[in-house]
């Protein structure tokens, strides 16, 4: 992998692309730390300090993770790439409902370009809504679990409130527009998928400070131990992410020039982790619900139900919580795989174009065969996801601390980072291969 990078840098074309991507990432990070006008930066820092020591299980922590900490500091890029992702999903869903969008989608590139344009407008719309909501939450202190009410992030000034708030909304919306553009620039002219690279950046950006925190609280040896463990986990993830079962496929459409090339060139790759990171996100989102309920039920003399939920379903170190989390992940993995990999559809497609699995008849027998293999391979995949996801919780028990609730070495973050990393490296590798003929003969 390292050698791939070195040779990538030796190829002028690719070097330009990589440097371009790094440049965009730098701009993105700059914007993520740049405070918006009207925000008291000193207060932000004090607030972040306060948050570190306290209990930080809030609804917005996951969002904060995706924005690389930019959300909590209400910076120019506070909303990050999320509005764009949300808008893309909404428009995709709307194509099912609105015939006009469905028509556009069918018109190929030209139509797709129009849909992209709508996505951009919707992103800006969402950005206005979200920034207003977050600013309101920040002003009321809820964004920080009411922990830093003594340091108002948006302090009162001589200007009327609507000017300050309006300015903030405009800044953040514009920031979102810029982030969207940066993402598209990476996709078009850089390496990797813009959205993924930016999410990767946000998560990776938190590594140094979190690492520092561990070093601070656990001492040098504890820190080394954690790093070693993390490396082991990452290695494991890299291996399993690449593991796949290859089902050979043969196409019987050609009368000449057909040879058997060991039968390895055409196959369906079934990944051990066919579902990716989505089940983990689903499961953890679902497990936020008890926490959210507690926030609403909070009172001075908690009832039995409150205590029950708090003890068993809102404490990440309790065994019932870990078990529920794991089971939810198992369930969502099967659920998601069954949706995204439809054996019947795949079998039909193969049949349509004259392909078949050697020794197995097309149509239903093929679909049955595929779903048999799939169900067998999904179990280890689901277990693997569950283990990676609950590792941090086990970790809390070992360290006897809740301070690392969302620390970036956690399951979700590692899965996302490794996933994006692998994807990007593969793309670089492929482009590198394409260009390997220059000077081929010397």
């Amino acid at each position: 992998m390292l050698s791939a990078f070195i040779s990538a840098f030796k190829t002028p074309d690719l070097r330009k692309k990589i440097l371009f991507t790094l440049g965009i990432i730098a701009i993105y990070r700059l914007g993520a730390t740049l405070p918006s006008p009207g925000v008291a930066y000193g207060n932000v820092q004090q607030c972040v300090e306060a948050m570190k020591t306290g209990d930080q299980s809030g609804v917005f922590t996951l969002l904060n993770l995706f924005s690389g900490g930019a959300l909590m500091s209400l910076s120019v890029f506070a909303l990050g790439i999320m509005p764009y992702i949300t808008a893309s999903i909404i428009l995709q869903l709307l194509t099912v409902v609105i015939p006009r969008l469905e028509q556009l989608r069918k018109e190929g590139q030209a139509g797709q370009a129009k849909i992209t344009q709508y996505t951009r407008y919707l992103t800006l719309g969402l950005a206005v809504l979200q920034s207003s909501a977050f600013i309101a939450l920040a002003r009321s202190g809820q964004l920080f679990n009411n922990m830093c009410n003594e340091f108002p992030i948006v302090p009162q000034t001589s200007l009327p409130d609507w000017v300050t708030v309006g300015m903030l909304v405009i800044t953040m919306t514009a920031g979102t527009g810029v982030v969207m553009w940066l993402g598209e620039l990476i996709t078009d002219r850089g390496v990797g998928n813009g959205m993924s690279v930016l999410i990767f950046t946000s998560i990776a950006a938190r590594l140094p400070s979190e690492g520092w925190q561990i070093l601070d609280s656990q001492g040098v040896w504890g820190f080394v131990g954690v790093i070693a463990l993390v490396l082991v986990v990452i290695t494991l993830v890299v291996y399993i992410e690449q593991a796949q079962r290859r089902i050979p496929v043969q196409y019987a459409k050609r009368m000449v020039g057909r040879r058997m090339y060991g039968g390895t060139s055409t196959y369906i790759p079934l990944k051990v982790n066919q579902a990716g990171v989505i089940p983990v996100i689903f499961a953890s989102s679902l497990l936020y619900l008890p926490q959210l309920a507690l926030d609403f039920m909070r009172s001075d003399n908690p009832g039995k139900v409150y205590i029950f939920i708090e003890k068993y379903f809102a404490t990440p170190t309790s065994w019932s919580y870990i078990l529920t989390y794991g089971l939810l992940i198992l369930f969502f993995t099967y659920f998601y795989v069954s949706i995204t990999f439809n054996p019947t559809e795949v079998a039909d497609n193969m049949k349509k174009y004259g392909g078949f699995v050697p020794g197995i008849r097309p149509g239903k027998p093929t679909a049955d065969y595929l779903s048999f293999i799939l169900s067998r391979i999904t179990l280890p995949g689901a277990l693997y996801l569950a283990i990676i996801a609950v590792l941090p919780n086990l970790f809390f028990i070992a360290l006897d601390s809740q301070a690392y609730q969302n620390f970036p070495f956690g399951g979700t973050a590692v899965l996302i980072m490794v996933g994006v990393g692998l994807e990007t490296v593969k793309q670089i590798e492929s482009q590198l291969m394409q260009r390997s003929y220059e000077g081929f003969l010397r």
Partner: protein
Amino acid sequence: MGVTFRLKNTFRRFLERPGTTVDLRPFEKLLPEIEARGEELADLSDEELTELAGQAKELVEICALGREAGWRALGERAYDVQVLGVLALLGKTVAEMATGEGKTLAAAIAAYGHVVRGFGPVHVITVNDYLARRDAGWMEPVYKLLGLTVGYVTGLSTPAERREAYKQDVTYVSVSEAGFDYLRDQLATDIDDRIQAELGTAIVDEADSILIDEARVPMVLAGTIANEQDPVHTAAALVRALRPKRDYEITDDGRSAAFTSEGLARLEKVLGDIDLYDTEHIAQLSALNVALHAEALLERDVDYIVRNQTVELVDEMRGRVAHRRRWPDGLHAAVEAKEGLNATAEGEVLGTITVQAYVMLYPNLAGMTATAVHVGDELREYYSLEVAVIPSNTPCVREDEEDHIYATNAERDEALIEVIREHHEAGRPVLIGTLDVSASQILHKGLTDAGVPCVVLNAKNDDEEAAIIAEAGTYGAVTVSTQMAGRGVDIRLGGSDQSDRERVAELGGLYVIGSGRHNSRRVDDQLRGRAGRQGDPGGSIFFVSLEDDLVRHHAADSLPAWPKMKFGGLVDDERVTAAVEHAQRVAEGVNHEIHRNTWRYSVVIEQQRKALAERRERLLTTEVAAEMLKARCPEKADEIEDDSLLELGRAIALFHLDRLWAEHLAELAEVREGVHLRALGRVDPLDEFHRSAVPAFNRLIPEIEERTVATFEEMDLDEGWAPERAELIRPSATWTYLVNDNPFGSELDRLISMVGRTMKSRG
């Protein structure tokens, strides 16, 4: 020019919309200078003009000399707009010039300009042999005055004639002849056998047609290989006995067909209760699949015609018979078997290049056409070419009427014949463009029955066709032709001698009728463009039926259930008009997507081809093969003289290089076919394709060496060695299974389609 118009134009230019990026204003400023210089040149003798022509370097001088030469040689003085066209061509852009504006002369002057500025030799690439011959002959006096030599190549040229033609300063050649000459040179085993000189500049005539429509057509050189058994006729007979829907199914887009379980059971029973999906029966299964494709998807007189006991392909883009073109992979033999003809030998691919890749071999590229702006984005994407829109000399006054849409084919045809009859009786010349050969035959029959005499152009040769189309403007003429017929030939009002010009002009000029919308607006525009040449009066209209393939394939679900209708089946409903336009946009998108995908996958093959061509060049021109043999098998190499070793080593190495390349191409074709399945593992199919193609190619070079050494070691030095040369044939076709390389869509798409299905099943 209004302020809003200017603002809009500025904005379009800012957005880099095609057709706005080339600024003609600097060129326009040169026009007075060119005019002035032209007046000076008028006094010179022909000899002095020729002498000056050899020294010209400046744009002004080139244009002035070219204009003067055109005037003296042909009596045609290039208009200012033609000069602008010349300047655009010299600036390596695609010049959009309206029909009849004298593209041929502009190209000739530009060709001269490129040669004299040191970018020669220039190839003027035409769409067919007829135009290559005609234009070369027509422009010869101009070139002669300018001190240049000119040649042309047609399908009938002998290798010696070709070699001679390519030696000239300017060569007129059709794109397929040029491409095949290049491919054949790539397989030459002796330097002296090569035909083409180096490639300098290409000026592409009808650039949209060649650079976009035909770009993905691969030119394939194949060798015949003996086929021991003949499964095609049995397969054809078996498949013929099947019934559609029950035994096999065709997809909605009409691009693929598959047996149903019932059909399979039937076939297996006839074949003697075998399991076709057993590995030992794969040859039979392939034959049946190909036979099914031939039976169910290819239609006689639409996709091919049968003439003189042979199957001839119809070019899907041009609607014309494509000479010497074959379907690949045994499909051609299967079609022959379907028609009860003798199946010809199958070809193994020896070398292949797409039109696009071939054209891009030229260091300098320019083009001209009447319809370029529509494909501006694609020209930029694939060739980095910009479009220069040249204003027309006289404004176009053609009246383009709105489409007439009918519910059924029968109603459409009836109305169509009625309209033609009316115009014919009034004496107005009518040109009808049909979508395919069979449609033109049906129309011919209908017109004859209605008592309207008409000329039908299909499957005739290019020369006759040109002669007929030139007369399409004659008083009372009715001409039926497929879309591209006679392109490049002017239709003058009142016939080629313009005797009845006034009378025809008074009736409204040529009336162009399309008997259905084509797969792209651009082709529609080309057809319309046949009328209204150089400010002539003219009109155009399209008659669409909701049963047209275009509408059925791409807009079946957007049509309202009960469209508003007028008397006679004429549909008058905005929703229907919108649906027809939508269908056309979908078709354009599909074609674009196929083009893009073909291109993306061919890039790596193209690089490999170039790398191997370099290697081949070295084998051919240096002594590397002999040196290698000396190093690897010194004993045996010492037994023969250096000269014979050189020759022998070269022959063996070249033979194995060509063979391995053919095998490599077959392997890549195999990978390409199933690579879309990899998307299911969340990887990019294109990346995966590279991952297979690159290592396979890297194994090629050592393998060539190994095989060369092995052959040399095994051979008997006394007997000599002769490779089994396959006879070259040249098939070529468009052959696409998949529009998209990820038919399942992204994971999000799959999720959403699942949601959609659930909603629809409930709703």
